[in-house]
């Protein structure tokens, strides 16, 4: 067998085994998406109820420190949700890019920006460029639990309730990836605190039959209830962002792995063609050698007679 043919055969073999791996990863990601989506759905009722409750409270209490914007905000915190593992296409890159543009925007408004990072990829990105990270969490992005969200939320809330003169922040933004569909995921930034009221009032202030929220009585008082519910609300927002990002991550990984498998298959097809051509060339070569040899023999014996 010719050397060239052997090289082709080897490349075909390795490409095929690579395709097997990416195919397996694609299938795994596909099952994980459903799981992640189910988790996000299961979290839906709580998110809906707490949003309604907080909206009802917020419409009653107007001057709560957690709701009002600081007169001149000096510092903002950004929570960026990226992935722990690679091979997910542009998933982490998009989230980081979104965070970058938000950082720039906030800096232009004269605010100092503190970055909180979730996910190993984002941490590596910042560390390599020697950018400061306030705090980071790793290993929670694939299957986020409420306890994880609570830890993140507690850290951010503590920073938020601090006075800005002592290093507290005036705003909290969350950059995460929205799950639009199996094929589309969009990195987006939202402000978690101070609450943007117009963000909730339209859809959440009416119940499922289109009636307005009832006039609640509060126990013990609206202010105290808000004090306790707002941190829970923020935690819930973070939890929801984590869940949605997890689903997006798997969807994006599935798409990337599908593209990789398709490419590998295409490559195998091309390589097979080239290998066949090389084999054919070899055969032709051998035939012409035999024919040439036979001719030479015939000519030699004809000459000797």
């Amino acid at each position: 067998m010719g050397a060239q043919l052997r090289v082709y055969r080897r490349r075909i073999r390795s490409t095929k085994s690579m395709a097997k791996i990416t195919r397996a990863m694609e299938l795994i990601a596909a099952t994980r998406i459903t799981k992640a989506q189910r988790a996000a759905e299961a979290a839906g009722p709580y998110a809906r109820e707490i949003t309604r409750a907080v909206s009802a409270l917020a419409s009653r209490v107007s001057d709560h420190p957690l709701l009002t914007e600081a007169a001149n905000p000096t510092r903002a915190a950004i929570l960026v949700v990226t992935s722990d593992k690679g091979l997910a296409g542009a998933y982490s890159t998009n989230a980081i890019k979104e965070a970058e543009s938000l950082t720039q925007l906030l800096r232009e408004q004269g605010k100092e920006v503190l970055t909180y990072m979730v996910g190993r990829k984002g941490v590596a990105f910042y560390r390599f460029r020697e950018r400061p990270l306030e705090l980071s969490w790793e290993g929670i992005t694939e299957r986020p639990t409420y306890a994880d969200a609570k830890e993140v939320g507690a850290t951010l809330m503590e920073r938020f309730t601090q006075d800005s003169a002592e290093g507290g922040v005036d705003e909290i933004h969350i950059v995460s990836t929205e799950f639009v569909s199996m094929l589309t995921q969009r990195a987006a930034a939202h402000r978690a605190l101070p609450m943007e009221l117009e963000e909730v009032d339209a859809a959440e202030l009416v119940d499922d039959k289109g009636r307005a929220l009832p006039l609640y009585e509060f126990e013990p008082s609206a202010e105290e209830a808000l004090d306790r519910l707002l941190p829970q609300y923020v935690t819930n927002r973070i939890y929801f962002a984590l869940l949605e990002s997890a689903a997006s991550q798997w969807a994006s990984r599935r798409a990337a792995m599908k593209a990789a498998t398709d490419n590998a298959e295409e490559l195998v097809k091309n390589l097979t063609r080239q290998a066949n051509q090389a084999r054919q060339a070899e055969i032709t070569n051998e035939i012409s050698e035999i024919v040439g040899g036979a001719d030479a023999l015939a000519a030699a014996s004809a000459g000797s007679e």
Partner: protein
Amino acid sequence: MSKKLFVELVSPERELWAGEGDMVIAKTVDGEIGIQPGHIPVLALLAPGAVVRVLGGRENGEVRAAVHGGFISVSEHNRVSILAEIAELAEDIDVARAKDALTRVEAEGISAEDVEAQERAARARSRLEAAGEAARA
């Protein structure tokens, strides 16, 4: 007209239980609250380590759950939602583990300043109470 409450028990990770009941009894930070059909809209914070009971929630008897750090919201049209960061139905509670946790916390001694230990003890007690085991004082 037969009136029933529609009750939802929700934790952040999933909906624990939803169904109809005759009365909901819970402990708020201000005291016990009992809700029957036709109650006015109320939003109340639940006491730490509370037990929520939904009477008539099942064929025979009641649904009980241990809830920590949550609130109860009663809206018009007899809808009751109980939201808690940690919530467990009585039948899901690991009695041995809760007992163990309580013994451990008590062995360490609960001081008045140690809020976390107090919370841990309250959690364990409410779990035992919900599961129907007598919590030792």
